[in-house]
């Protein structure tokens, strides 16, 4: 294929704005997939993606298109995830493209994440084609959508394509505009090989399969290649393209998008973002990789049955082969035993990982509530605190800094009051409010990430009946008046129940913590005080009443044996509990504290 006849593009769209349907239409129109073979939305191949209607992994596909100018073109579509958590996947697909379709729902207008992704595309120098979708709907307001693209994103939308992915309107125009507006890739087929790995997957038979975009030079089977970051050298077994299944080809030239397999055993050796070059004729420096992915949300994954630890470890390893953005390291917990502390890009990312571990690897796991990382200065030194136990004594702390985000919420104006109240409860700091149209508003707040990750998104959705969309970016660490609240059970500090919160919320949170524990800790032979304290100062106390009756009254003759068996059972039950001082605490109590649930702690 001639290089000037190649077009590489991606689609940027908010969830539900019709990206997948549009992609399906493009595949159909170019006969890449015949409509009778189409599953609904074939690009979302993970079952989880199809269920949730979201794209998580990017999936490339190659289409052949004869344009109105009579020439044949190759169009490479690199699908992108729409959710804010997967911004890094977006940046990866953007790096492999020269153009982007910006899809906006004509009935809803621009949503928060769309703005961020469109900015990224513009920043990377991509040609952005605005598309107003769903114009077939009676409630569509294409002119409003155009105006919003101009006002909110700042792109000229006067020549935006009006389309309906559902009934096919505008699809031909989109294909033509991709050919005419998106520039062909540059690159020299004779230059030393430079290919960017923009994704990789693990295949049980072929090892790692790298998705690549060739920048310069040519990739062929049999070629000896060098992974520049890891210095791994491999002969290429196969090169191919996505039609949309893996289809082997003889070569991949500059500007082409495809895959290679080279019997690479682990994803660590073929990192996403790395540059592949020719081992015999290497380039001197690698392509710029991606912005370093940084985990912002952490949580612990533990096997439900302690014996399943090895299964969980293997499953996590395999999952990370597939999703390089997950970080993990082993940790142990009093209540849950051996497990892993995992880092994620956001809450949805965490949720998806958990769900995939369950479905694809059949691992039953307990996920602890998510947390952020704090920075604490004490006597000149700065430490990172991942968990409450990392916090020094109150007296030693000079300053605590916590991650803050800038939050943009796009919402119908009728919900402004409710949302402002919600954000303020979450320690949000008002920045700005502007009307995008008379009934759509953009609110900008700054708020602590820790407040955001607990349940903000769910609350926002329920407060606005799902009409609000949000985007956030990390804006750095800021000093905060945080305290560690400890929970004491019968006078003994129970680490597992400690938590960090703002000092103004300490009483309220402490109260609900001890009340919840009171319900979960069974009566003991003595009255058990449960206290919440900050440092040495007790802020709230409740008591678990002493056990009153625990006896099976009848016991004659042979009953002694039966009785002993019952007691043995009771003893086994007690063994499964954790002893904190003299108090036996059932695992459910720990789980209730550690696990993610909708309720506040």
């Amino acid at each position, binding site marked *: 294929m001639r290089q000037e006849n190649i077009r590489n593009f991606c689609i940027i769209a908010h969830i539900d704005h019709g990206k997948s349907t549009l992609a399906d239409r493009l595949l159909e129109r170019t006969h890449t997939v015949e409509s009778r073979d189409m599953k609904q939305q074939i690009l979302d191949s993970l079952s989880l993606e199809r269920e949730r209607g979201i794209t998580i992994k990017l999936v490339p596909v190659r289409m052949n298109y004869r344009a109105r100018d009579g020439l044949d073109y190759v169009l490479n579509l690199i699908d992108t995830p729409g959710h804010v958590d997967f911004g890094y996947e977006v940046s990866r697909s953007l790096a492999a493209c020269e153009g982007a379709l910006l899809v906006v729902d004509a009935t809803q207008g621009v949503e928060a994440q769309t703005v961020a992704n469109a900015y990224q595309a513009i920043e990377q120098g991509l040609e952005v084609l605005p598309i107003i979708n769903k114009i077939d709907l009676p409630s569509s307001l294409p002119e409003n959508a155009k105006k919003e693209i101009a006002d909110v994103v700042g792109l000229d939308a006067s020549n935006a394509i009006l389309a309906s992915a559902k009934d096919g309107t505008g699809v031909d125009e989109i294909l033509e505009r991709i050919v005419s507006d998106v520039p062909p890739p540059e690159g020299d087929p004779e230059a030393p090989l430079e290919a960017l790995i923009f994704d990789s997957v693990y295949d049980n038979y072929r090892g790692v399969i790298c998705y690549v975009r060739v920048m310069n030079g040519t990739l062929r089977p049999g070629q000896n290649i060098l992974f520049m970051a890891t210095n791994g050298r491999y002969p290429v077994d196969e090169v191919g393209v996505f039609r949309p299944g893996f289809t082997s080809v003889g070569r991949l030239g500059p500007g082409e998008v495809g895959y290679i397999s080279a019997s690479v055993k682990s994803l660590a050796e073929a990192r996403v973002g790395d540059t592949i070059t020719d081992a015999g004729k290497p380039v001197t420096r690698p392509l710029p990789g991606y912005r370093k992915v940084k985990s912002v949300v952490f949580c612990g994954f533990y096997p439900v049955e302690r014996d399943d630890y090895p299964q969980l470890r293997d499953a996590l390893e395999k999952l990370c082969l597939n999703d390089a953005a997950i970080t993990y390291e082993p940790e142990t917990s009093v209540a849950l035993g051996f497990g892993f502390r995992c880092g994620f890009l956001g809450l949805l990312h965490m949720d998806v990982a958990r769900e995939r571990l369950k479905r694809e690897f059949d691992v039953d796991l307990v996920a602890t509530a998510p947390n952020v990382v704090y920075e604490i200065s004490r006597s000149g030194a700065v430490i990172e605190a991942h968990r409450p136990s990392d916090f020094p004594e109150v007296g030693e702390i000079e300053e605590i800094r916590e991650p803050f985000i800038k939050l943009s919420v796009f919402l119908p104006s009728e919900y402004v009051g409710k949302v402002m109240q919600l954000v303020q409860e979450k320690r949000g700091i008002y920045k700005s409010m502007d009307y995008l149209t008379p009934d759509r508003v953009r609110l900008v707040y700054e708020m602590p990430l820790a407040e955001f990750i607990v349940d903000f998104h769910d609350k926002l959705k329920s407060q606005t009946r799902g009409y609000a969309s949000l985007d956030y970016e990390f804006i750095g660490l800021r000093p905060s008046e945080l305290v560690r609240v400890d929970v004491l059970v019968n006078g003994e500090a129970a680490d597992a129940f400690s938590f960090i919160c703002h000092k103004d919320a300490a009483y309220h949170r402490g109260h609900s913590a001890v009340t919840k524990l009171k319900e979960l800790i069974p009566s003991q032979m003595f009255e058990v005080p449960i206290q919440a304290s900050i440092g040495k100062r007790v802020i709230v106390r409740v008591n678990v009443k002493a056990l009153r009756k*625990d006896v099976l*009254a*009848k016991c004659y*003759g042979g009953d002694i044996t039966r009785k002993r068996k019952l007691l043995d059972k009771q*003893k086994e039950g007690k*063994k499964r509990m954790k002893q904190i001082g003299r108090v036996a605490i059932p695992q459910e109590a720990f789980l209730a504290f550690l696990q993610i649930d909708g309720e506040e702690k």
Partner: protein
Amino acid sequence: MPLFSLYLHVPFCVSKCGYCAFYSEAQGGASSSIEAWLDALSREASRIDAIWEGRPRLRTLYIGGGTPTVLSLFEWKRLLRILNDGFDFSEIEEVTVEANPCSLTDGHLSLWSDSFVTRVSLGVQSLRDDELSWLGRRHDARAAARALEKTCSRGFDVSADLIFGLPFQTLRTWRDSLRRVLDSGVGHVSVYQLTLEPGTPLGDAEPLLPDGYLFYRFAQWYLPRKKLEQYEIASFSRPGKECRHNLAYWRQEPVLALGPSAWGYFPENGFRYRNAPTLEGYIPLTETQPPVTEAEQIGEQGLSRGIEAAILALRTKWGIDTASFAARFGEELTEKVLRVLRKIPPRLVRFFEGGVCLTPSGMRIGNAIWVELLELADERDVKLSCD
């Protein structure tokens, strides 16, 4: 040969009560099956004599069931004869018969008072008609009260069983039952909480039961005021009227079993055994061998036996006698047991010169304390696996 306690199980009832999980054949048992059972008892008794090379000397005898009073006078006479022939009653201290108010007759009482029977345990359960019918008992409160008076007037030591924790029971109805039982002159009361046993009609219906705490604590307060002291978790008696047979259980004394589903115990080797659980299995076995079908040895090295001994002793008001416990199970285990008990809050256990026992509050939560003692057995397991 030691002095034995003998437990004889009568596996017949007029009908099964909704809560009862003990073995019995309902519909009173055809007289032919009672006949066959008596034949088998007699065979088992001679076999016991053969094993012990003579008639075992009995300290106590307990004839329970089932419902012993479904046996006719004729059948009773034969039963007493079998017992007399099979066992030595020269040192007998107590012979108890369980009786049901609706099948107990004057004839039974006359026959018993002419024999070695000294004590009658009446299954009263409640003296409220509504509670009795909910339990599926075939007698009403009046019949139960009449049976109590009749039995007491014959000069037997009389015990009444009462159940608490019924769905619509209140402290007032419980007090009524307790008071009317005491008014009849009984010297012994056993109280126990209704427990739902799987496989029984009530157990499978899973009714909602009230917390038994209030009823039990009330009995612990009320009965001692009426001069019935609590001498065991479920037992209250006037001085000297304790059930000697049950003490044999709490003290790990030798017990012989007779009849289907009866249990026995030999303390020298910690051997506890059970006869075939049904008539069907029991009768043919007696033709050829001792009808034992289930047995276990409690603690080969005496450790579990010691812990069981401690738990059983703590059921009683006498508690653990430190010196005799140490003599049986060694200083080390004694010290371990005491160490566990010293960690229990003081309002639950009482240390006294030479021993330790549970307080009334401690008796209410006995299970929780016993579980702590059972953990001693594990400590040793852990040590062994470290070696």
